[in-house]
């Protein structure tokens, strides 16, 4: 499929000179990207790179041919004003085009729903007009940005007929911190810390993607020991979050046994991460070029014991959840996203796998330690809350097996040099399968090797529209369990 593409091919964690990226006039570039997507590629990232001269913006597309285990990249010639919209042909570009319009004032002609993504207007995000449904029985429910629980801020606008949701529109941006702006010109002294805070619950995945991009820009690779450690940290992060969310999902159905047990067990997995690097969320675990924290055999043995205990307990707690008929009644046939919809809007991660799509970066685009060791991809058909919960419980088992296998075989420690300089005028891409799905980092350096553009795409960016679709035709009272089954990041989206 990817054989006859005119885009430049590159592997995950690969780089190529910026000048070697094929370029076309903007309108043709949009058409060519649409053609790539037509033949089965998936849009990983789509962004603008302002020209140094200040004259126009180049569009860049990173697409993935999952079946061929390869990525492809293309770009447009500098353009300003407007380009034809890609969204009309491929809805997965919808948010990306809005983002480009917001960041570079480049209007996608014909875009069906052009409004800001996260830019602020005064004190709050510029939400613009919401979609409205008219009718005597129709009423509008606005939830957030301030919620009753301790969760992140986001605004949800429901159009309902009685209890049934006809349409849901989600407006985010309340956590916009200007991460991408801060990263440009880098790497700075703070960059590693800033990357770790893109989404605090996905620290290891984002930090790994950043380190991989940097190493790729320096034409190098991390020591094997560091790659091993990153893979361990990544799976621990997955375990902690999947466990916590399954507990929260049970909590939203008012099913206390699993909710109480998983709340505690999430802490056990976080403590395992803390045993590795001193921080429960994995901060400091991943550093570019560095070998990472010291892990001796005694620690590995202790971790293995704690891990096995926690995994046994999680299995029990989740078994209670599947055994409760009332809970299954709440989860089955609720919040369904059909496979075709998931494909059309480019969903990733467990939410996509719960629609029967085999999409897993660890398997499709292995890099780092995943070139040597892999966990089977967990897929479940159905696309409902039950399927999403099921995929996550399967991933708990498989991540557990992976960890038990890999913890026992640490590679030798090897001497590492310092950080080599980054190549100038180069583009590097790194995909990492975080617990929510594909984390995509793209860096383009200038002549002196500093970041000219650093683009971060959190999996939530792909999946929020999925939640909106999942709610259609469902009861508004089921929104919390739908929301929790996706468990998307606000700050990862808002950047």
């Amino acid at each position, binding site marked *: 499929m990817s054989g006859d593409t005119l885009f430049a091919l590159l592997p995950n964690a690969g780089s190529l000179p910026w000048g070697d990226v094929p370029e076309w006039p903007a309108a043709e570039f949009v058409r060519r990207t649409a053609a790539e997507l037509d033949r089965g590629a998936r849009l990983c990232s789509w962004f603008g790179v302002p020209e140094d001269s200040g004259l126009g913006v180049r569009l860049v597309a990173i697409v993935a041919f999952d079946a061929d285990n390869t990525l492809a990249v293309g770009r447009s010639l500098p353009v300003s004003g407007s380009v034809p919209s890609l969204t009309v042909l491929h809805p997965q570009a919808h948010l990306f085009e809005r983002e480009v319009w917001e960041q570079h004032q480049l209007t996608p002609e014909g875009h069906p729903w052009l409004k800001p993504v996260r830019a602020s207007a005064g004190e709050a995000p510029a939400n613009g007009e919401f979609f409205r449904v008219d009718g005597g029985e129709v*009423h*509008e*429910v*606005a*939830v957030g940005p301030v*919620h*009753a*629980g301790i969760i992140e801020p986001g605004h949800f606008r429901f159009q309902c007929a*009685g*209890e049934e949701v006809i349409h849901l529109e989600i407006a985010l941006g309340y956590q916009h911190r200007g991460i991408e702006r801060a990263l440009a010109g880098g790497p700075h002294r703070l960059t590693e810390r800033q990357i770790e805070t893109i989404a605090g619950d996905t620290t290891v995945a984002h930090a790994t993607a950043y380190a991989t991009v940097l190493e790729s820009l320096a034409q190098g690779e991390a020591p094997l020991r560091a790659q091993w450690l990153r893979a361990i940290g990544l799976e621990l992060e997955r375990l902690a979050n999947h466990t916590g969310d399954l507990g929260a999902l*049970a909590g*939203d*159905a*008012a*099913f*206390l*046994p699993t*909710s*109480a047990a998983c709340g*505690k067990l999430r802490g056990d997995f976080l403590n395992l991460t803390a045993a590795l690097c001193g921080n429960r969320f994995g901060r400091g675990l991943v550093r570019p070029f560095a070998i990472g924290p010291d892990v001796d055999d005694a620690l590995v043995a202790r971790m293995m014991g704690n891990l096995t205990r926690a995994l046994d307990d999680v299995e029990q707690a989740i078994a209670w959840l599947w055994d*409760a008929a*009332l*809970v299954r*009644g*709440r989860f089955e046939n*609720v919040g369904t996203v059909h496979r075709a919809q998931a494909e059309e809007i480019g969903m990733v991660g467990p939410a996509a796998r719960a629609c029967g799509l085999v999409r897993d970066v660890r398997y499709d685009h292995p890099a780092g330690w995943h070139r040597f060791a892999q966990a089977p991809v967990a897929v479940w058909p159905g696309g409902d809350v039950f399927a999403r919960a099921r995929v996550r419980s399967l991933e708990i088992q498989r991540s557990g097996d992976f960890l038990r296998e890999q913890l026992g075989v640490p590679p030798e420690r090897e001497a590492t040099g310092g950080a080599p300089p980054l190549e100038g005028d180069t583009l590097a891409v790194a995909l990492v399968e975080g617990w929510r799905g594909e984390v995509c980092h793209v860096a383009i350096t200038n002549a002196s090797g500093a970041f000219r553009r650093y683009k971060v795409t959190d999996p939530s960016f792909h999946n929020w529209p999925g939640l909106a679709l999942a709610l259609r035709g469902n*009861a*508004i*009272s*089921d*929104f*919390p369990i739908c929301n929790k089954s996706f468990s998307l990041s606000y700050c990862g989206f808002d950047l």
Partner: protein
Amino acid sequence: MMIVLSFVARLAWWLLLAPLLPGIINKVKAWVAGRRGPPVLQLYYDLARLWRKQVVMSTLASPAFIVGPAVAWAAVLGATLLVPLGPAAGATLSFRGDVVLMLYLLALARFATTWAAMETGSAFEGMGAAREVTYAVLAEAAMIAAMLTLAVQTGSVSLATMLAPSVGTSAVLLAAGLFTVLLVENCRVPFDDPATHLELTMIHEVMVLDHSGPPFAAILHGASMKLLLFAVLVTQSVLPMGTYSRTMASIVLLVGVLIVTVGVGIVESFMARFAFRRVPLLLTTSVLLCVFALLVAWQGAA
């Protein structure tokens, strides 16, 4: 003098004992989950805190926003005064047909809360009010069938006489039916989740989201009195209270209320919530249970 003393003692039972029940339920839930949980007296602390707080009012709301909780609280208190505390102690106020007044006072309380909720003009409150009223239609049917059972059994329409003997064979049916009504009337799992913070899934809680300060304290206190009222009703409907001595009856009543309360806690610990569309199914079941109890009582009487 004795009359005054007994009146004060009754008021104390209803007003002071009631906030203990939610505390016990929460303690049971915490205990089952292996947590320490909030103190048993937490609701008392909450009420004291709320009482000292200011009232925040929406600019849209009319005074009904404040009047609603007050009327609801007074109506529930009025209903409690009609409920006997054991056959010997009797009720504060007892007359032929007081059971009908009790039912209507509870309905008035619901109307007042719903009215105050609609005053805010918020989509949340409107949604909650719609749900509350929808489920009340079925819950009230079950409640009326249960009271009819007692009336047929005893040939009386005064609570003091109705609640004295056991209903005999239909006691099990009635206990199940009334316990379900207790759960739905007091917004407990599996109908509602008092512990949730998710506005979109709430029934009762979402109606009172905008209330604050003393009116909110009145709502919480009224809710706990209603729970106590139902616990007392369930206990007395199924146990032969008339056959016990005065002290024994008081002890049985206390233990019965405690068992019902712990029962609510245990149900909440092990049951998940129903989806909204399934709630009417369970409620219809409780109506049927009470109707069957009525049939059994009727056949027994004939």
